[in-house]
């Protein structure tokens, strides 16, 4: 390497500082949204009767803020800092870095405006509407060009393991986002996905699970591989372990999505694949944990002395817990108990608060003093942050697992005479409300810890009065000489393009095998069971259901489990959701399943229930929806909606499309007349959203009955 000639250049540290500040700001927002959501579940009036912060709209806001705003900015900060140093090169283009930064903040602001307003596709972590989807794609491509351009101009022959994880992240997130977001616009802020029912469910959970894998796991593993040895100043434990666990993780993860759909109407073969690949994920995941933790071997005293090491080790330990619990929850019998319950909420928060949160905090505590050329203001405050945050996570996790298992057992309890022991769903809810309070306190502790950190970082930056400048470095350019006797993988680490193509192939295999067969949905549909599509008013009501985020608390999927059939009626079939765009199978039951709600109660019951759920279901924790009684249904757009649906293959006749609004008005009158005959007096009742919603609710589960 002593060629003599050295390049003199500087790393772009400003972009890292920008992303770090954004991380701090959005972390605060994401955590506060989470706390408010937790409080609303403990005490429903916390939504203040305001539609914009009611749970159905707040929950997507919280998850999007936590994943894409907080974790996203943290990833970018960590990647921009470490990539430049690992590749010995300034980022490919400062302009692209700036576009990436500001573009991503724009995406977040668009999300923060549209989600509270109810513009949502209802696909979890992919709720944002189509114009924002396009913007995300654009910004991600900018990031990719900037990143791969940096690889191209690197001065380090071999790419370190952190870079491998960044490569896999950038490629896979692009594939996931684009494929899951293929949708047809109805208006500027509404669209219908091209996938329907079971197909949509499979694509969505292929995306949803791998958003966890490739947005919250692989980039953070990359960060771990850089910041753990940096913070502890210790060598990484095993190079060959990093090779095996990287490739096995990337290859296996992509298959695991269907474990979100066990015992549903998804074909058995896909469920089985989802379960077995989830089990196989255990060892590859733990490979990362071992490499992280054993980096400390021989230096465990650091754990006692250094709060940054504490955060890192706790983060990696939580990663180990979450990646053991994940495969466990994917076992069909365990899933039958835990799915739809708060156990899953506990599970994801071990990952989010423990793994992503704590690792990010360690990284911020490490980077801020370096980037502002000073020392951390207070190590004692950082230590206090650690213990308070840890207490918060434990309260959160223990309360949610207890709540989940308790409720799961109550749902399935059947006595000797073949009856449900707890036939009233609300009984299983009021039982766990105290645990919702414990969870909220857990979240509060976590936020208090974060506030200490914000103060600590503020003081650190304030005390750094010297003008900060980019780090200057000198390094030799890459020469073209090839080392012949390198191991194959070592050689591969010198080939950026080949490495990226292989990563793409690794994630493409599972994706193709699972998704392609279901693209011809009709193969799985029995012609004799094909159902009628929604009437125009039902469709209007359905869009209100989606808009209000009803799916965050109510499933529409009766699983093939005896206790569910006993409680809700016959198991849901593929045909029953075959026209559903987007699908509404749901992932959590804070309230009961609604797949067969239609006809169960008179329309008057729904009218009173949506106004004040406690008037018909004492003890319910569902919020009131007073705005449905003043807002008007948009009848005119129904022609467009039906025509888009028709374009997607829903069998509407041309006449049905052109008469959609008139037909909907007729339907509304029937329901409104019924309500009026029961004594409801309300001006222009026919036009109110509540009537359209009732029309949809009364259709649930009725279409299959012929």
């Amino acid at each position: 390497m002593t060629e003599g000639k050295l390049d003199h250049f500087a790393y772009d540290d400003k972009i890292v500082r920008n992303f770090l500040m954004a991380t701090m700001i959005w972390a605060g927002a994401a955590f506060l949204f989470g706390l408010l959501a937790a409080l609303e579940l403990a005490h429903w009036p916390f939504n203040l009767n305001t539609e914009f912060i009611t749970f159905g709209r707040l929950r997507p806001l919280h998850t999007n803020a936590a994943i894409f705003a907080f974790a996203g900015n943290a990833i970018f900060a960590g990647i921009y800092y470490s990539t430049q140093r690992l590749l010995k090169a300034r980022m490919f283009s400062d302009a692209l870095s700036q576009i990436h930064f500001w573009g991503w903040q724009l995406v977040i602001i668009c999300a923060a405006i549209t989600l509270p307003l109810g513009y949502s596709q209802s696909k979890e972590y992919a709720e944002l509407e189509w114009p924002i989807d396009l913007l995300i794609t654009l910004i991600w491509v900018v990031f990719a060009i900037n990143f791969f351009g940096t690889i191209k101009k690197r001065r380090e022959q071999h790419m370190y393991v952190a870079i491998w994880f960044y490569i896999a992240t950038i490629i896979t997130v692009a594939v996931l986002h684009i494929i899951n977001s293929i949708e047809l616009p109805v208006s500027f802020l509404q669209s219908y996905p091209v996938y329907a029912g079971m197909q949509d469910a499979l694509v969505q959970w292929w995306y949803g699970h791998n958003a966890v894998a490739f947005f919250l796991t692989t980039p953070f593993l990359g960060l771990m591989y850089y910041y753990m040895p940096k913070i502890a100043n210790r060598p990484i434990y095993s190079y060959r372990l990093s090779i095996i666990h990287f490739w096995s993780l990337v290859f296996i993860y992509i298959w695991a999505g269907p474990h979100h759909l066990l015992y549903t109407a998804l074909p058995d073969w896909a469920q089985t694949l989802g379960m077995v690949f989830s089990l196989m994920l255990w060892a590859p995941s733990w490979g990362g944990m071992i490499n992280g933790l054993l980096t400390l071997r021989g230096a465990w005293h650091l754990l006692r002395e250094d709060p940054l090491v504490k955060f890192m080790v706790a983060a990696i330990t939580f990663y180990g817990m979450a990646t053991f619990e994940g495969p466990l929850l994917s076992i069909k019998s365990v899933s039958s108990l835990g799915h739809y319950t708060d156990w899953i909420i506990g599970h994801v928060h071990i990952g989010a608060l423990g793994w992503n949160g704590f690792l990010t905090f360690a990284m911020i505590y490490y980077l801020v003093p370096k980037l502002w050329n000073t020392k951390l203001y207070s190590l004692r405050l950082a230590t206090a942050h650690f213990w308070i945050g840890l207490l918060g996570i434990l309260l959160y996790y223990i309360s949610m697992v207890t709540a989940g298992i308790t409720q799961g057992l109550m749902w399935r309890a059947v006595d000797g005479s073949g009856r449900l022991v707890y036939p009233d769903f609300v009984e299983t809810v009021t039982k766990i409300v105290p645990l919702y309070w414990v969870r909220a306190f857990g979240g509060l502790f976590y936020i208090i810890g974060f506030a200490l950190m914000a103060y600590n970082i503020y003081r650190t930056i304030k005390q750094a009065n010297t003008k900060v400048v980019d780090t200057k470095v000198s390094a030799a350019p890459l020469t073209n000489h090839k080392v012949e006797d390198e191991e194959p993988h070592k050689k591969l680490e010198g080939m950026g393009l080949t490495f990226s193509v292989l990563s793409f192939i690794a994630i493409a295999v599972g994706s193709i095998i699972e998704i392609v067969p279901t693209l011809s949905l009709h193969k799985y549909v029995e012609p004799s069971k094909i159902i009628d599509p929604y009437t125009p008013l039902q469709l209007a009501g359905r869009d209100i259901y989606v808009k209000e985020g009803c799916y965050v608390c109510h499933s529409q999927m009766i699983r093939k489990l005896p206790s569910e059939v006993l409680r809700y009626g016959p198991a849901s079939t593929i045909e029953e959701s075959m026209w559903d765009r987007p699908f509404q199978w749901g992932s959590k039951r804070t309230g009961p399943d609604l797949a067969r709600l239609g006809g169960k109660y008179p329309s008057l019951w729904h009218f009173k229930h949506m106004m004040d759920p406690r008037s018909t279901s004492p003890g319910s924790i569902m919020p009131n929806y007073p705005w449905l009684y003043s807002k008007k249904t948009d009848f005119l757009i129904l022609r467009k909606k039906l025509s888009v649906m028709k374009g997607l293959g829903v069998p509407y006749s041309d006449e049905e499309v052109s008469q959609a609004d008139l037909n909907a008005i007729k339907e509304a009158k029937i329901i409104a007349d019924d309500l009026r005959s029961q004594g409801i007096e309300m001006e222009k009742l026919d036009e109110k959203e509540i009537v359209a919603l009732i029309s949809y609710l009364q259709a649930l589960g009725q279409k299959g009955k012929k």
Partner: protein
Amino acid sequence: MSDDKENQSTEHFDGIVEHDHPLPRWWVAIFFATIIYGVIYYIHYESHSGPTTDQELAAGMQEIYQAQKSGVAETIDYDQVIKKPESIQAGAKIYSEKCFMCHGDKGQGLIGPNLTDNHWVHGKGTSQDILAVVQTGVAAKGMPAWESVLKPEEQAQVVAFVLSLKGTNPKNPKAPEGVEVSN
């Protein structure tokens, strides 16, 4: 530390050193065990030597139907329970948990019909008629079937309470529905 030196990789990235320890054996064991288990599991279920989810459900439902059938043996003498004076109070408690939302706290009718007047929608208001509606519900009108929720004795107690409401003339009654029945 000699062990570390032996395994030391020559690579340094931005000052990060990588060792090259062999894979922990227990880790390799888990890795292969889960793969082998996965393959066997998949073959077992997808070659139909294991039950499909539909078959599992059918078997589970069979058990429940069996239990429900054997439960029929414990039928009670409904009339006797309905006539017991203490049944009214027990029925009132159940009514105040499950029924008042639709029929009103005093039976005056709300979403469902008035239970205090002389008009009856289904049958003539005899204890047998009321029991039948409580048990099997009226699906078309949104009255749930309580058979699978309330125990036989509880069903009878509710009927006793409903019978006791007749002629109580509560405030804000719902307009009469159904056919008038003369006492």
